[in-house]
């Protein structure tokens, strides 16, 4: 900002005012996003009784360590296996397994749809893409019966695979592959590369950012599942974090003292890993989406 000392011309004032307005809007937007988190953070530092009586306050209490301890190490179940740490593990497995499964299966299917001449391509296309929007909630009972018949209760496979039954990743990869220049595949063919070699050596490396973007979307989606994990797991060692929060928040409407401190701490713990993933990979994420949007 070298022009600070320069005499201010009317034009420049206007620009600076508008920049100021831009910042004001962005700061307001950031606060809109951030304040609820700060409120939750505050309630993890006070006792439950304080929270019930006075709600969130402007000062921090001294119960953070206590609540963290309760959330991470006090098992809320019978076997003592569903501590915060074990739930964190399961959520991680669900998030990672779901994201990887979806990416691998989606890329394969999209590759087949875009790069091959198939007689039943249109049929396959519609079969796959009608699954795009119908959520699991409305078909959960029959899905459970099928999972059970296949012996998938209380297994990671049962937790992950039925959730993969929608084609979001396939859809995004299809869009992306179609934006890849056609010359590439022609060049590859002239060089004598087969379809597998082209896929592994050229298309996959080329899709890196897209894969990263998909990974974030899918990891977050898998991590955040609630209803399906509740149905499919009966062993406490299989519980996920989002499910664990419910076990504690349910008490908020019960007859005892609601454990706000512990529930909110678990909520924070549940938010952190996916947020970390989003923040850490944000450049790839944004880039991946931009490219898919061509």
């Amino acid at each position, binding site marked *: 900002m070298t022009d600070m000392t320069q005499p201010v011309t009317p034009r420049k004032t206007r620009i600076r005012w508008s920049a100021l307005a831009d910042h004001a809007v962005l700061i307001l937007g950031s606060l809109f996003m951030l304040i609820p988190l700060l409120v939750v953070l505050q309630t993890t530092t006070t006792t439950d009784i304080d929270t019930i009586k006075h709600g969130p306050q402007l000062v921090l209490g001294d119960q953070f360590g206590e609540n963290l301890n309760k959330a991470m190490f006090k098992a809320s*179940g019978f076997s003592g296996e569903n501590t915060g740490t074990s739930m964190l593990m399961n959520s991680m497995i669900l998030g990672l397994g779901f994201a990887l499964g979806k990416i691998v299966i989606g890329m394969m299917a999209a590759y087949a749809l875009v790069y091959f001449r198939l007689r039943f391509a249109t049929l396959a296309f519609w079969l796959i893409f009608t699954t795009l929007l119908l959520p699991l909630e409305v078909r959960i009972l029959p899905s459970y*019966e099928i999972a059970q018949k296949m012996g998938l209760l209380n297994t990671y496979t049962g937790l992950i695979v039925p959730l993969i039954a929608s084609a979001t990743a396939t859809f995004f990869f299809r869009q992306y592959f179609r934006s890849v220049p056609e010359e590439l595949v022609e060049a590859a063919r002239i060089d004598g590369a087969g379809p597998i070699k082209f896929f592994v050596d050229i298309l996959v490396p080329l899709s890196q950012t897209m894969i990263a973007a998909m990974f974030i979307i899918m990891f977050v989606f898998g991590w955040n599942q609630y209803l399906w994990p509740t149905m499919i797991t009966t062993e406490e060692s299989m519980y996920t974090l989002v499910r664990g929060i419910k076990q504690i928040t349910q008490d908020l*409407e*019960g007859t*005892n003292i609601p454990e706000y401190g512990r529930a909110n701490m678990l909520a924070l713990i549940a938010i952190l890993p996916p947020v970390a993933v989003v923040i850490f990979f944000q450049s790839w994420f944004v880039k991946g989406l931009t490219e898919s949007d061509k």
Partner: protein
Amino acid sequence: MNKFKITTVAAAFAMTANVAYAEVEISWWHAMGGALGETVNQIAEDFNASQDDYKITPVFKGTYEETLTAGIAAFRAGEQPNVLQVFDAGAATVIGAKGATVPVQDLLIDNGVNFDINDYISGVRYFYADSDDKMIGMPFNSSSPILYYNMQAMEKAGVTAPKTWEEFQTVTAPALKAAGYTALSQSHLPWIFTENFMSRHDLPFATNNNGYDGTDGTKILVNNDAIKAHFTAVTEWQENGYFEWFGTGWGDNQTPFEEGKVAIWLGSSGSFGGLSKKDLPFDFSATLLPYWEAVTTEPKQTFIGGASLFAMAGHDAADNAATAAFFKFLTSPEVQYFWHKETGYVPVTEAAYDMATKDGHYDRLPAAEVGIQQLSLPAGENTKGYRMGFYVQIRDVMNREYGRILTGETSVEDAFAAIETEANALLARFAKTQN
């Protein structure tokens, strides 16, 4: 062929081995979150420690609704738990599906456990029984709606807790208002102001013996003058500032009482434990649910709320023996007293009630006895319980219409007409599911 035989023999051998040497493992799906869940776990641990033959594992399955649905889905898949906790509104679904459960009465008798339904407190006894008075579900976490009051508020207003609604609206509420309080709030309109309105005044709630005699042609009798007069009075109280409604959330209606803004709160007898732990800025006590003298001069006992435990069918004799042993343990006076003390839910047997009395529990905490006193009042024609299918949805309809009454969107007359029509349609639909 040969290979098949060997595996079968091996499997059979493994099974006998199991019976002979290992403890029988059974499962219990429940909906008790938070601190309640911890008490459930404690009971299970104590049972496992009390003997070597059986081991029970409790599993938290979410809300009452999620637990029931998970149990149903598991049953259809042949993966049902041994014990399933089912809440009051879901009882008709489970009891209607004969073959889904083993009646606890049969289960206990078949396994050589002494069973006499008269050992159970009278208000609890038949709520999960069939029309022949056979107990189908084991009452577990049982509570009844009672009246909690702020003692300082009463003193300040110079009144005592009301016995009748007439007393409330002419004496108690005006005095409390003058003393700067909202007189009344309550936490569950269908449970407190509908189901228990019927039992307290001994009014029939549905045809076919409150629905116990079968689903065919069962009609709800909710559209009656007594209850409409009650709701009309409630809206008047609301206008006069005697009553406030804070939505369908349980806690939202309880909090203003805890904050000392509302002087009287109608809640669950099971709320007692939580209230005492909350370090309220005033002393509180409890008494029986008021009634309308204009409707009856002989008020009766109330219905229970909460949930019961069902022994799911489809398990072998060894499993059922384990379940019976667990039920025996659970209904023992010691365990019931422990549960009562920890949670505030009523003990379900007379023996446990005696034990609590002798131990001086009610001398220390007189209000803890109110729920059980109310459930031990004289029974009437219509106080056994009610059995209506799709009752979860019927409660939803009630909640919706009551909400509309209290926000001024509809009239009492229209609301009850709507509840009657929609509930009867649901009952007719339910009857068709039972063929």
